[in-house]
């Protein structure tokens, strides 16, 4: 019964998301696009944090390299969008593989430190390597061409781009969800709850952590790739640790214990950001206070707290 209600709510949400461009003011099409992209970014982070139990403070590096990859391919080679996004995914995965290889060797305290440090290294490179990344100005001035697969779309139209993002996010999220529900996903959750027991079951937990981190990097790269045509720029700020803080906060806000938590968190986050930055400059201060309060008193997040209560109810 309850699972039927949940499924119904989910289908209704998807229908509403599809209908969004026709029912909300023009401005909110952009908000919707951002929520979807950041939701996927946060969900990729939560595969590592909520499922595997590793706190990454450097996820902006994978997101950012995805943005740069798509931006540069569009600028220099005018590839179709789909091809660019696949490269973004690959770059995110590759970077995560390298950083992860060095960072999963030790415990979670080291992991948090190292991801932050290596993330900032990538940020510095984007900043300093002017000949390739154009420094702090970033990569801009690219235009969207074809989508790919012979599908004819006017990507420059925000409503069309929103629908493209929606379709990609839904497909990517389904894949991510399947991974979470697979035997591999079960092992990841086991590692979060009791890594030692898993290694005494005969599994090399380092390898599983690295695999989770790499998969996560791929999806973060994909999300970043979709951000390039949306923002029309790839800049080093997208790799700064303050960008890494966003999926962390979104996941905590929505709830790390449920797959859809980060998406709910993303919606709350982006809407709050829109409203608060129109009133005050102190968005980051607000962010920090919300994060602290959520961790202290509301650790299960908003969706998590609600679902815990509702599913436990007779």
């Amino acid at each position, binding site marked *: 019964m309850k699972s039927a209600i949940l499924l119904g709510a989910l289908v209704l949400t998807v229908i509403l998301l599809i209908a969004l461009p026709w029912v909300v003011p023009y401005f909110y099409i952009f908000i919707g696009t951002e929520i979807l992209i950041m939701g996927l970014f946060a969900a990729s982070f939560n595969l590592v944090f909520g499922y595997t139990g590793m706190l990454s403070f450097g996820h902006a590096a994978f997101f950012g390299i995805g943005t740069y990859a798509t931006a540069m391919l569009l600028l220099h080679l005018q590839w179709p969008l789909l091809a660019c996004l696949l490269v973004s995914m690959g770059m995110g995965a590759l970077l995560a593989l390298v950083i992860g290889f060095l960072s999963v060797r030790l415990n979670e305290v080291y992991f948090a430190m190292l991801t932050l440090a290596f993330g900032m290294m990538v940020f510095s490179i984007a900043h300093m390597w002017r000949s390739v990344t154009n420094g702090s100005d970033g990569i801009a001035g690219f235009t969207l061409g074809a989508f790919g697969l012979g599908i004819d779309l006017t990507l420059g139209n925000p409503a069309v781009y929103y629908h493209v993002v929606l379709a990609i996010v839904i497909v990517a999220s389904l894949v991510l969800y399947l991974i979470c*529900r*697979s035997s591999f996903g*079960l092992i990841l959750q086991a590692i979060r*709850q009791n890594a030692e*027991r898993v*290694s*005494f079951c*005969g599994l090399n937990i380092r390898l599983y952590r690295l695999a989770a981190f790499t998969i996560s990097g791929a999806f973060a790269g994909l999300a970043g790739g979709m951000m390039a045509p949306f923002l029309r720029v790839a800049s080093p700020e997208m790799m700064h640790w303050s960008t890494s803080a966003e999926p962390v906060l979104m996941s905590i806000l929505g709830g790390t214990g449920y797959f859809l938590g980060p998406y709910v968190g993303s919606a709350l986050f982006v809407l709050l950001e829109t409203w608060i930055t129109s009133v005050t400059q102190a968005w980051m201060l607000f962010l920090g206070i919300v994060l602290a309060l959520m961790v202290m008193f509301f650790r299960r997040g908003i969706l998590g707290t609600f679902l815990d209560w509702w599913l436990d109810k007779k």
Partner: protein
Amino acid sequence: MTDPILNIHNLTKRFGGNTAVSGINLQVMPRETLAIIGPNGAGKTTFYNMVSGRMQPTEGTVELNGHDITGLKPHKISRMGVSRSFQINNIFPEMTVRQNVEVALSAFHGYSRKLFNLASGNRKVQEEADELLNRLSIGELSSQRAGIISYGDKRLLEIAVVLATRPKLVLLDEPTAGMTPEETRRVTKLIRSLADSGDYTFLITEHDMGVVFDLADRILVMHRGESLAVGTVEEVKNNPDVKKAYLGEDEDDEDGEKEAAV
């Protein structure tokens, strides 16, 4: 004369200036049940930690079926057929009881590398998990969350997880610690039947002498990290050193065990 399944030579562990385990020599025969007894701080857990790969020995070697496994990583040793339980419950608290066993079974059968199979749709693993849980008499708990079942049931669940990887050698660390007498009888009976099945070799550390005398084919007595005596129940009971150590010593000396836990 068969070869020993486990052959330990001069196993030693030092922490800084303290020697937790000192020069243990031991041969364990296939399908026997060997109990390791000794006061807290005698080095039993440290001994387990070295055999199972959780700690590197300072000196000495561990051979399993003739292969040197000294200092190998826990997951490698587990793959070679050694499985262990812990003194403190070591399960996956947020998963259901059945999922706990499924984790170990997925690891054993190699499903753990599958990214796109639905874990909850894996009949083979589920049936095997249920079978194992039934064998341990906790089958009716299978869809309960593991974190909320009773203490004794948690210990049984851990044994189920331990057995799921089909080990040849099973190391149990105080399987009845903290249990009610009723639960203790249940677990003792269970281990007895597992031992009688002839599929396993057991090493058991235990404080409850009733349980030890009931289960053990042989006993290793440890004292301050050293092997005081090894032999059958009768031999050990009559050993003058053992008598002296057990009657003359304060059993609540916990420092050594703490050292071992660090």
